Structure formats: C-alpha cells, structure tokens
C-alpha cells in the first residue's frame, strides 16, 4: 500500500491481526467462574512491561480500585493508553518520581495531565515533563479507532482526523489514499492492549456485563484487550443475564477476572449511582503541588491503605457516599 506520509511516533504494541489471533485462540471460552479480588486479579493479570488500558472517561465510570492496586503492587514499566485519562492517569503517575520505581514508561496520549474543568495535575505534569516517559500523540477518536480496529480483529482502520497536524507527525499513523475514491485518509494502527480494566454497573460471575449511560470506548476496549479485568458495582445472578440478553454489552469470553467493587468508580462519577467527589479531587490536586505533601497524602490514601474498602472509609465512608448518591440524583446538593 502506498504510504503518502508517516508519523514519527513509536508504536508501543504490535498491531498484527495474525499475532493477536494466535493469542485469542488460547483464551478460555467456557462459562467458568471468574470472581476474584482486585489484588489477585492485578497480581495474576498485570505484569511488569505490560501495555495497559483503562475504561471509562478519566473521572467517569473508572475502575479506581484496579489503578490503586497497580500502583500499590509496584507494577513497573507499563505502557498506557491515555484517552481522556484524568484521575486514572493521576493515580498511575503516583508510581513515578516518588521512589517507587517507574510505573509508567510509555504513553499513547490523547488527553493526559489535565482533569478537564478541574485544572491540571501538578504531579502528572512533573512526570510528563521529566522526559522519563516515552510518548506518542493521538486524539480521543483515533485512540478509540485503534481499539476498534483491534476489536474488529484488524491491523488498522482508516479515519479522517489527525491529518495535517503535529499531532499526526508525533503519532504512529500514516496517510493513505482510499483505493476507491482517492480520498486521503489517516491509517490508524490497531491497539491490542495486554491488559485492560473496565468498571461496569452489573456483571455475572462469568463476566457478562451491563452498563448504563455512555459507553465511551469500553465495548471496543473489552474486545481489543488480550486480558480483561472487570470491576462491577454489583454481581448479579447469571439468570438475570439470560432473562434479557439485549442488555449484555460485554460477553463473558472477553473477560478474565470479575471483581465486585461497590462504589468502584469513586472518587469518579458512576452514572445512575453516585456523583464524583469534587472535594476529594480538589484536595488531591492541592496535595500534588508539593512533592512532600503529596507523598504524605498518598501514604494516607493509597500506599498505606490495605484495599479499596479502606480507601472509601478514609474518604468518609458510607455517609459521604450517601451524599454523592443524592447529588447524582439531584435530590440535594449533598453537603
């Protein structure tokens, strides 16, 4: 195929569809019980050097417990898919520049270091300005297209953005011409993450998942990932899944581990469940300003905490979560 132009950015993961097929041929297909703890799932499925992708939208429907555990278990040298990665990215950055080695080594960037309207993360900026993380540039859609290509079992897909910009030049995309119309297109290489984590509303013990609200890129991510950890607000009986198969959006054969983590998106928003804890997120951003303050903050809320339930407890526990539920349903401002 005639390549008209080519981005300079490194490609961190093999886009070969044939190689991915070889892996997927070994993945279990039977309905087996996959319920486990987050600690075990992270220990068994996330390895040093892996390329990781996280579901949701930075502060919305994120698998917080998995990101905490990755940092707590000192996973090293990870690649990461940073599509509107906000609080999730902030957590993973706690594994860099703070004497715990280097959690993040390679990042595909669409949106990192920011927390949208909340401002920029001082520590994530320190990490990204340190030069210790190798980067390749994308956009939210083209990073989603990379996952869609993988979900479709392809090595690439075309798209009409990135073209003509420095974002293209620092990406690993190429420019091709449509063989039918001659229209110039960006060829976007598939991204098959080694491991992904997605938080959903409901899952059965085999990994059949339901969610409510926007799905962002998660349905493609679930299919693209070689290994997939699901955290869910609620485990539900398998029978419920069979009662309404239209509602299943991730099938069991994509899933390797299922962990019930109530309030699992905290301090992020979980649609129809609880709103984001803006106060905690503000305190987190403030703590980041000074490395020493941040170290103490992380000792209190992450490194020195046994598990996600203890983190919730330190953040105000059920009374605080009740307020956030009231905010989500606009019942009350919850303060």
């Amino acid at each position, binding site marked *: 195929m005639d390549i008209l132009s080519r981005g300079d950015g490194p490609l961190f993961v093999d886009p070969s569809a044939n190689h991915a097929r070889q892996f997927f041929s070994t993945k279990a297909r039977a309905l087996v019980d996959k319920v486990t703890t987050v600690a075990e799932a992270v220990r068994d499925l996330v390895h040093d050097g892996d390329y990781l992708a996280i579901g949701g*939208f930075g502060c919305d429907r994120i698998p917080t417990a998995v990101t905490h555990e990755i940092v707590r278990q000192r996973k090293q040298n990870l690649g990461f898919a940073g599509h509107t990665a906000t609080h999730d990215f902030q957590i993973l950055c706690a594994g860099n520049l703070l004497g715990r080695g280097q959690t993040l080594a390679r990042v595909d960037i669409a*949106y990192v270091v920011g927390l949208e309207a909340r401002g*920029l993360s001082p520590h994530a900026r320190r990490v990204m300005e340190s030069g210790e993380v190798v980067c390749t*540039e994308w956009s939210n*859609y083209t990073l989603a297209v990379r996952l869609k290509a993988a979900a479709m079992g392809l090595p690439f897909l075309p798209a009409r953005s990135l*073209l*003509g910009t420095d974002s293209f030049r620092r990406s690993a995309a190429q420019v091709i011409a449509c063989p039918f119309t001659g229209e110039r297109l960006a060829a976007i290489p598939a991204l098959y993450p080694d491991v992904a984590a997605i938080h959903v509303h409901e899952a059965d013990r085999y990994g059949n998942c339901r969610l409510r609200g*926007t799905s*962002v890129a998660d349905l493609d991510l679930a299919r693209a990932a070689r290994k997939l950890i699901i955290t869910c607000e609620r485990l539900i009986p398998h029978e419920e899944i069979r009662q309404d198969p239209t509602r299943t959006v991730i099938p069991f054969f994509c899933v390797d581990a299922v962990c019930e983590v109530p309030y699992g998106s905290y301090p992020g928003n979980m649609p129809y469940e609880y709103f984001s804890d803006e106060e905690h997120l503000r305190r987190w951003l403030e703590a980041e300003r000074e490395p020493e303050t941040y170290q103490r903050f992380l000792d209190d809320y992450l490194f020195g905490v046994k598990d996600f339930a203890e983190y919730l407890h330190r953040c105000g526990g059920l009374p605080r979560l009740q307020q956030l539920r009231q905010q989500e349903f606009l019942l009350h401002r919850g303060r």
Partner: protein
Amino acid sequence: MNYNAMELMICCAARLLENGRTVAVGTGVPCAAAMLAQRTHAPDLVILFEAGGVAPQLPTMPISVGDSRTFHRAVMATSMADIMEACQRGMIDYTFLGGAQIDAYGNLNSTLIGNDYQKPKVRFPGSGGANDLASLCWRILVVTNHDPRRFVEKVDFLTTPGYLTGPGAREAAGLPPGTGPYRVITDLAVLGYHEQSCRMEILSLHPGVTREQVLKATGFALGVREPLELTSSPTATELRILREEVDPHRYIIGR
C-alpha cells in the same frame, strides 16, 4: 446594564448557534453558550458531548465531558465513536474549542510549550477530542482570552487543525472539504477569517475596545473586515437567563 467580559463572550458565542443545528461542545464556556442559545433563540439546538451524550436537558453545568449530566434526560447515551462518526459523516455543524495558542489560520496548540517533544517545557493535556472535532465538524468556533502570548505567529505544536498553512491546505491534507475555522470570540472582539487568504480578521469590536488594542494583543498581522462592526451588548434577557438558569453558581461567569 453591567456585564463582565466572560458574560459578553458567552452571549456572542450563543448568538452564533443557529436553531435546528447540531453542536459538539465541551465543558465550561461552550456548554454555557449552547445552554444559553437553547433558552433564547435556538430551542431546537442539539447538543452533543464527545463521550456519548446526545441532546441532553442539562440540569447544571457538567464538570466533565463524560459525566452523568452530559446525558441527563438525553435522547441517547452512546459511545464516543458513535458521536465522532456522526461528525465524520457530516452530521455535526458546530464545535467549540480552545487552546493555549492560536495562530492566524486558526490552528490550535493544546499539547506543549517548548521545542523538545519528549521533554517539553510545559506539558498540556493534548488533543483530547479537539483534533477530531476540528477535523470533522463543519464550523469551528473558538472562545479564548486575547493576548499576544496566546495569539502567536507560529504555534509551538499544531495540535488541532485550523486552515493549516492557508487556502486549500485542509483539503490537500485530506480533511473534509467545506470544513474549517469560523469564528473566534475573545474578551476584546469577534474575529472571522478572510475568504481568500483564510487569515484571521476582526469582524466586530466589543464596546469600549479599539482596533489598536486588538492589533496590539495579537502576535500576528491581523486583518480587519470593513465595515468593522460593534459587538452588541448582552440583552437583559440574555443576562438574566445566563445568571439565573445557565450558571447560577457563577462557575463560569465568575471567573
């Protein structure tokens, strides 16, 4: 009637949004402008958020493009690809963007300051969905403060395409024909682009602002479309709706 610069900017932005059109917005000013437009002249304006919300009835200002407000009482809560592909099909008329730097062709930088990509002086978030929306929607609106460090001759990093290097450059790059920068709304003026040269030019000055003030606040040679207009001040109705319904907590207009 008194109003601040932010209130004026939001009103200017809102007036550009025609009724019965689609607009992809982010949080903050764009969202406030779209909400105001819906409550004034454009009740049938359809708002979309890139994370998947379609035509929500926004109860309050969202804090994230993906939070649950963005699909509150929406007609559809879908995927990011579904939204972006509606843009790619040509179904979305407007998008609102910002950035750390903008040049005369409306190109935006939201990636970094410096000249070493792998070790930048300042790292910003990156494109997010901006590159996609600016590539795929028909008309790009930018709302930003006006100062020479922001309005630069050359952006440090071209994150998001405006007219690139000038006339025909978008099409030559493969971007969909007929798309491109449309208006820039600042605290000083409303700007557009010259039809032939694709370079930015002043369309109207905000009340009390001089042509020279705008030229001085701009780091590149800026045209003027004659006759230069005066930006209309916000009406009492616009201000009331903006202050009471759109942003009662003054999250945006209090900045």
